[in-house]
């Protein structure tokens, strides 16, 4: 794996022995009518998730920070502030395994319950812990971003200066007790170049930290999309909405 940019004070390239592919999903429920998605599909999806774990997938980003943490599928409840209902980040042993795994989940019944944007890429940087980091973060913040035309036109010195300025903001994130699970690149199969996954204590933390990025003009050279949600067991998030026979609309 080649990182798109070099190491900084905050970030270092992931070691080759820990090279992994990653999958981000943004899913919106579409099982509005009874019979589209039921307990049998839910069980089949959970079966595939069990297989993926057995094949070496990491299905909870907590495990990236703490390898001893339970590798139980976790999702992010995003419906309260985004058009999609849930998100999640998995890691797979290889790019091919990542791509095939998304298809297996879809076939098991995921496709019936959700319309989903699957982003598939590779891990770039190692995880970084916030100052005073604790393990009870219940919220996640996702940042997708890409360098804009101005970055692409800028001289190497300008880009390096910019990286150092952004590093100041990332240090500010760590002061907010944000845990950053490294950086992933998605440019192989999307227009977004990168994903950052943060564990945060709540949405206000993301807002405050991002103000730090605005202060150093992070966004002069990037276009980004930010997603905030509460971390919950994926099993709860993919449960069928209603039982067979209930025909009412919601």
């Amino acid at each position, binding site marked *: 794996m080649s990182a*798109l940019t070099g190491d900084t004070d905050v970030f270092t390239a992931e070691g080759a022995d820990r090279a992994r592919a990653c999958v981000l999903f943004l899913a919106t429920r579409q099982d509005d009518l009874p019979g589209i998605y039921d307990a049998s599909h839910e069980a089949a999806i959970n079966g595939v998730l069990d297989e993926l774990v057995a094949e070496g997938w990491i299905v909870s980003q907590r495990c990236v920070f703490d390898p001893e943490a339970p590798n139980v599928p976790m999702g992010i409840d995003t419906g309260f502030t985004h058009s999609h209902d849930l998100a999640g980040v998995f890691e797979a042993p290889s*790019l*091919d395994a990542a*791509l*095939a795994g998304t298809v297996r989940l879809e076939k098991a019944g995921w496709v019936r319950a959700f319309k989903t944007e699957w982003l*598939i890429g590779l891990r770039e940087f190692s995880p970084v812990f916030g100052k005073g980091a604790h393990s009870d973060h219940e919220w996640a913040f996702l940042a997708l971003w890409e360098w804009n*035309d101005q970055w*692409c*036109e800028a001289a190497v010195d300008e880009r390096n200066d910019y990286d150092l300025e952004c590093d100041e903001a990332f240090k500010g994130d760590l002061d907010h007790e944000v845990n950053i699970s490294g950086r992933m690149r998605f440019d192989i199969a*999307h227009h977004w170049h990168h994903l950052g996954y943060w564990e945060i204590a709540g949405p206000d933390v993301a807002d405050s930290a991002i103000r730090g990025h605005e202060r150093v003009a992070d966004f002069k050279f990037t276009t980004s999309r930010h997603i905030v949600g509460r971390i919950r067991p994926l099993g709860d998030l993919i449960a069928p909405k209603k039982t067979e026979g209930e025909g009412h609309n919601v």
Partner: protein
Amino acid sequence: MSDHAQKSGADCAWLHYARPRPHWYLTAQADKDALCVSWNSIRKAATEKGAVSQGRFHIRGQHDFETVEIWRFPSSQAAYDHWQALVEARYSEFFAFSNNIGLEMEDAVK
């Protein structure tokens, strides 16, 4: 599809959407020519390693991008290796892009 692609167990489509970034139009012709030679050699090397290019098509009339290239690679990793070679040759500095990888549907729509 080539025999190689047909035999591959992990045949992977790679769709590459692209448009020139604004400063491409300000780049000296000689520099553009040199870059294009470099990028074309990368494309040629990919085909020599089993990739199959279906061509580059003009789509500006219905899309934010100007062209789409349609490729098949022996694996998604091979597609990544091709893309990374282009990135290292500064292709993504001069062209905005969006990419997709995909596996062939095994079943008819049910």
